[in-house]
Each structure stands twice: as C-alpha cells, then as structure tokens.
C-alpha cells in the first residue's frame, strides 16, 4: 500500500549538491568580503590612525607577533568557560531529575533559585571576585551557577513536556515508573535539554570574558581590558577577534553534538 507513501527525494548527483552548496554560501561570503573591503576603504578614505581602527592585516600581524601570550590567554578563557559549563550542566541536569522525582524539593528551592537568577549574572561578577579572588576559580564558579540555572529550567520543561496520553499508553503495556522515565520521559526531554546546553555555552563564553575584564591574571577578556588601558588597541582587536573565533568553534561543536543526540 504505497499509495500514501511520502515522495522521497531522488538521489542527488555530486554536481547538484555542489551547486546548491555554492548557492547557499556565496551571499554571506560576498557580504563578508564586502565588509572587509568597506573596512579597508574607510581606513584609507578617512586616513584613520590605527588606534581608532586598525586594518585586518595589522590585526593578523599583531596576532602572529605574540602567539604564546595569545594562546595562553585563549586557553585560560576556554578553560574557565568549559570548566564552568560542564560542571554547571551536570549540576543543572541532576537538580532537574531531583526536582522531577521529588517535587517538594522544587517547591522549596526553586523560588530562591529563580530570584537569584533574576539579576543579570554579570552583576554578580564583582561579588565573585571579592569572595573567590581574581584567579580562574571565581569565573568557573559563577559560570557554573549561571549554566546550571539555564540547563535546569530547560531540562525541567523537557522532562515535563511529556504528553500524559503517551504515558498512559505505556502503562497499558505494563510499563513501570522507571521504564517510562527511560523510554519516554528522557528521550522526549532531549531536545529541550540540548537547547539549554546550546544557549548555556554562549553564556559561559560571555561570562568568562566579561569577568576577566573585572579582574584576572590572564585570559582574553583580561587581555582586552589590559590593552585598552594601555592604549594598545590593536592588541584589543586581536583578543576580540580571537574571542569571536573561539566561541564560534565551541558553539558549532555543541550544535553538532546536539544534532547527533537529537537526531529526529
């Protein structure tokens, strides 16, 4: 009975796939090139000194000039962001499961959690630095706290997103609580959980950098701050550029993992 079968796409030749890929890519690439061209043009036309707007080439040169420090800063920031992120995600997931298994815990602790998180996380930066110093630990702790909240609310929503009728159906098959949790609740929650994880990873990079600007020994945010203080603006651009690149890479990795885990 294939009368009502969906029409499946015929297999694509390599050429069609390449053409389609090119079609999708050339506008943003064009936009990027336009941006670079405009950048160079503006510098040249207005004769801008390099502390106002260095050219892309100058930034690349400056980056290549001091690779060790740049690398050290990058690794520091990544370490803080990912450290807080992984720990915070695990905490958020655990608390979500606890809250679903024992709703009384949620009623007791969630209001406080929500209130604390209604203040933008960056506002707690100075507090974190005073309590935990300017080393990496204060950053990791704050990121852990922020990420755990994001992951928690997404995981809670996901674990609760189950259609009660679906749960009822599994019960008619004789499924018990744990079977329902494993076979239904958790897979149904995965899209939400991974959405939370994707959002949280962006927050962790932002927080790491902003916190370093408040006080740190190393890191991309600290480098940005230090460079602007010392009027070394090209260095600031290098650090900013690096932050953008690193964040994009981390974000795409998390997105890839999300797509693998939530394949439907």
């Amino acid at each position, binding site marked *: 009975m294939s009368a009502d079968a969906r029409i499946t796409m015929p297999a694509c030749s390599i050429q069609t796939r390449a053409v389609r890929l090119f079609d999708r890519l050339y506008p943003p690439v064009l*936009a990027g090139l336009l941006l670079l061209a405009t950048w160079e043009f503006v510098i040249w036309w207005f004769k801008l000194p390099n502390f106002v707007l260095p050219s892309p080439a100058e930034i690349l040169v400056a980056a290549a000039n001091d690779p060790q420090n740049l690398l050290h800063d990058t690794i520091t920031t990544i370490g803080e962001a990912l450290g807080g992120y992984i720990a915070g995600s695990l905490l958020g997931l655990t608390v979500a499961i606890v809250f679903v298994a024992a709703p009384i815990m949620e009623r007791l602790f969630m*209001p406080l959690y929500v209130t604390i998180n*209604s*203040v*933008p996380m960056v506002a707690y930066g100075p507090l974190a630095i005073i309590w935990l110093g300017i080393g990496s630990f204060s950053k990791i702790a704050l990121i852990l706290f922020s990420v755990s909240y994001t992951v928690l609310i997404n995981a809670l929503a996901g674990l609760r997103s189950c259609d009660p009728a679906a749960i009822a159906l599994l019960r008619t098959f004789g499924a018990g609580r744990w079977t329902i949790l494993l076979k239904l609740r958790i897979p149904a929650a995965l899209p939400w959980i991974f959405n939370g994880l994707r959002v949280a990873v962006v927050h962790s990079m932002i927080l790491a950098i902003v916190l370093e*600007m408040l006080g740190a020994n190393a890191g991309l945010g600290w480098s940005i701050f230090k460079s602007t203080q010392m009027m070394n603006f090209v260095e600031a651009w290098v650090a900013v550029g690096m932050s953008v690149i690193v964040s994009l890479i981390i974000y795409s990795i998390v997105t890839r993992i999300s797509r693998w885990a939530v394949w439907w």
Partner: protein
Amino acid sequence: MSILRTAISQALLVCVVLVLWEGCVDLLDVSPDKLPAPSVILATIWSDRSALASAVATTLYEAIIGLLAAILVGVLSGIAFFRWRLLERMFLPYFVGSQAVPIIAFGAIMIMWFGNGIASKAVIAFYLSFFPIAVNTLAGIRTVDDGEIGLLRSFGAKPRKILLKLQLPAALPSIFTAVRLGASLALVGAIVGEWFGAARGIGVVLLTAMFDYRIPQLWAAIVLIGLTGAALFGVVASIQKKIAWWQTEA
C-alpha cells in the same frame, strides 16, 4: 493551585530565606565584609538613595535609548530582509551567528570610539539587542503562510498593505519575544559598558564598590540591578499584553 497562590507562596519562601539570612548573620556574627544582613543592605540603599537613584536612572536611560533604537532599526532590517531576499541571504547568517559569540567584547572599542559618556553605553545596548530583534522580525513575518496572503490578495490588497495589515501584526509576538530578550541584554550592555569607562551609572557604583571593598554597597547595587531588570522586563511584558495579546508563541 492558582497562579496567585503560587506567587504568594514563592514570595513567602523568599521572605523566609531573608529572615534566615538576617538571623544567620546575627547569630554567626558574620562580618559585614563578607555577607551583610538584608537589613544592612536596605539601610545602605536608603541612606544613599538619591545617589543610587540617579545612578539607576543613568543606566536605565542608556539601556532604553539603545533598546528603542534597536527596535526601530531591528524591525526595519527585518522588513528589509523580507523584502530583498538577497540581503537576507547575505547578512542573516551573520545576524544569527552574532548571537553565538560574545559581541559584548566589542564594548571596549565602542568606548574608545564614542567616549566615556552615555552615548557609548547606548551604542553597546543597541547592538546587543538589535540582532535578535531583526532576526525575530523576519521569522515573525514568515509565520504567515501563503494561504493567508493569497486570501488578502484575492481581496485586491497590494504587498505593502499586506505587510502592514497582516504580516507585521502577525510578527508582533515574535518581535516582542526578542524585545524581552533585548531588554535584559541592553541592561547588561549598559552596565558592562560602564565598567569599560564611565563616571555615572549603577555599573560604576558596582565597580567602585568592588575596588573600595564596600560590600554593603556592592549588594545594594546588585539588588537595584535586579529590581531594574525586573521592572524593565515588566514594562515590556505589559506593553506586549496591550499590543500583542494573542500569544502564539511563548
């Protein structure tokens, strides 16, 4: 449990925590350097109230100006993306991508370009909230399917009318979602912008309190920032209720 009852019980829980906090600080004799009691924080807010009020006002001003500009330019950009597909294909990836990277890091450069005054902070608030608003405007316009557009066209409506009477209103819930997000981003942008260099604002108060090691004042700033954020969010939410009450998305 009705919403009112849950809200009351949650508020009560928070009050209980505050009381416990006050009690613990007293009993355990925690130094006000580490963790001041709520009463101390409130006293600090009260005694500094005029300075703090003007600081909050400054920061709010920066954030709101940036947000309003972002709404204007963002919605127009979203419409432009809708109207000219090539523009969308060229720039939308960057707009979407900008939300995955810490563009707040560009704040240092904004300060350099626009000085230490209000303008630079408003610019930061602007570009932080601009991208999500533009993206959501486009997405919102797109929620209208061809069937609905076809219906209006069968009444003889021209594209501009369809845009104004159908697509933009349909985009409102989506736009407001982005504006809500943008409100918190704008506030954060204003505060962090002040850290880069400013004379006035609640972000400055926070920073000074950190450097001077004045903990009660630090906490006062935190509390005020939280209240300001909530107030801003509340204003946007109530405007949304008035203008786009038919919520099709969360």
